[in-house]
């Protein structure tokens, strides 16, 4: 329906002190695909992620989201335009139940007057929360405090919370970090299913997972784009072999 990229970065750069963490990155993220950003430690993956999600403002360059220039726009506004992200460090609201965590996130879709009606009076939000609970297999722990969940469950909740606002783009920061093999497999299945309906951008260390999951892979090295292509293309790329996969 729409072939323009959902996110484009144009000559995006940011430096901390003298260090250029992201250096002149021009990149298109295609609609409805799963795109992964990989690269060795310190390649600027997380920084790029933070730039695109509005957590950091770039030193120079532009970010286009769905045709609009959103450079320097605060996180909250980006979120309202359909960009949601998860965090590497799980840091939601540990004292609240899983249900409350999700409901808080889901309520953002009921703006205005609804914000001043009781939380319990919103069937649409409730339905959305229930769908997420089932989708992420969190039903049995719905009434547990988020801080009491297992690591795998917390990671799943983290993604579910990001999804609660029904975003167009879901950005996942190392979604399987610290997970057991079984949990990783399960999460990979989940992400693939999510990718059927929305654009997913992942920063990930686990190369096997990335190659298995992604439609498109972006390789960063020293803050620059080293290569971009399908998993097959990336596997065959000589530069990537030497710079990154060779050492793996």
């Amino acid at each position, binding site marked *: 329906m729409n072939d323009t990229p959902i996110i484009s970065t144009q000559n995006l750069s940011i430096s901390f002190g003298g260090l250029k963490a992201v250096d002149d990155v021009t990149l298109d993220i295609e609609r409805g695909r799963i795109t992964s950003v990989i690269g060795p430690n310190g390649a600027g993956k997380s920084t790029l992620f933070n730039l695109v*999600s509005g*957590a950091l403002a770039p030193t120079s360059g532009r970010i286009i989201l769905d045709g609009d220039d959103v450079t320097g726009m*605060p*996180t*909250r506004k980006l*979120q*309202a335009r359909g960009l*949601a*992200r998860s*965090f590497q460090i799980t*840091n*939601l*609201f*540990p*004292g*609240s*139940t*899983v*249900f*409350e965590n999700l*409901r*808080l*996130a889901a*309520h*953002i879709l*009921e703006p205005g007057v*609804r*914000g*001043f*009606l*009781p*939380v*319990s009076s*919103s069937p649409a939000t*409730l339905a959305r*929360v*229930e*769908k997420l*609970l*089932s*989708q992420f*297999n969190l*039903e*049995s722990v*719905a*009434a547990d*405090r988020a*801080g009491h969940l297992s690591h795998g469950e917390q990671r799943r909740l983290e993604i579910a*919370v*990001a999804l*609660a*606002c029904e975003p167009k783009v879901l950005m996942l920061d190392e979604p399987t970090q610290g997970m057991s093999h079984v949990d990783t*497999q*399960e999460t*990979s*299945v*989940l992400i*693939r*299913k999510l990718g059927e309906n929305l654009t997913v951008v992942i920063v990930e260390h686990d190369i096997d997972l990335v190659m298995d999951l992604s439609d498109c892979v972006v390789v960063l090295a020293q803050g620059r784009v080293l290569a971009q292509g399908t998993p097959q293309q990336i596997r065959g790329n000589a530069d990537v072999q030497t710079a990154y996969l060779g050492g793996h």
Partner: protein
Amino acid sequence: MPDPLVAAEVTRGARGTRGAHIGLAKVAIDRENEEQRVVGCLAAVFFLAALLFAIYGWQQGDTFFLRLGTEALIYAGLALSVDLLLGHGGLLSLGHALFFGLGAYVSALILKDVSPSFWLAIAGGTLSGLLAGTVGGIIAIRARGVYFALITFGMAQVVAKIIYNTQELGASDGIIGIPIVPISLGIVDIRSDDPFAFFTLTLVIVAAIYVLLSYATRTPYGRVLSAIRVNESRLPFLGYSPAYTKLGAFVISSMIAGLSGSLYPMLRGFVSPELMYFEVSTNAVIAVVIGGAGTLVGPLFGAMALVFGKSVVGSYTEHHLIVVGVFFMASVIFLPQGFAGFVKDRFMGSQDDRS
């Protein structure tokens, strides 16, 4: 590429019927409702006891205790305003006496110089809270944690000092000679010097504030405010604005403090700079902490305990600060969730670890 896990996922999706989901989410909602029930019971106990107290006092022809009770209720209103910020937003204000005192002064000036109208006076007090709260809030919400506490502390101190030195406002003497206020309530007409009637009216106002605030904390907006206390930096990524939420809470809180303050001159017939002093701010914080921050009902009990406790201790010694201080410190150390928090945990037999 066939994947057994996808198959497993699909079966699980099919197995989980909609009924089962609702059942599980319901457990979570039930828990919340039970919490509300316990708090609601405590509130019912409070307002019923206050009403019985009023009727008993009326029968006995008492003045002293009814007026003391009215004062306690006025301070309970202030404590509620502090609890909205501290218990829900995690914002410790050490300067709410500013809005309370401002409301009292504005009300006193209206009653004395404009018209002895009850409605005009409380409207003026609330409006002064709105204006001062907007200005003060814009300054204070930029600061986090202890900085917020110290800024509100400084703000109140500065304004108190200015009032103290302003001749037009009676300087250190304050404003005296506030006329008795006739209050027309439609069905019945009362006067502010009738101890029973004014107590009951104040009780109704405090109950209204309580109901309003406990309703507000159950709205999505209220939940966002509570989330600020736990994880402020995460909220923008969920689409919420911590700054606007905090400012909104601050303004509502100041309006309630101003409204409470506006009742003071009707009760006592005067206002003085003491109403803006640090002690008034700290007393409100103490009432919140010993009563149970974040419960709203706790601060009502806390304010009663503080005002009546001080009066009782005061009949033996003028050094009530020691008693209050010891009591307060013991509460912080041994019962950090306060009286209402303790009762709530008891009744819910909880695995609670509020964070």
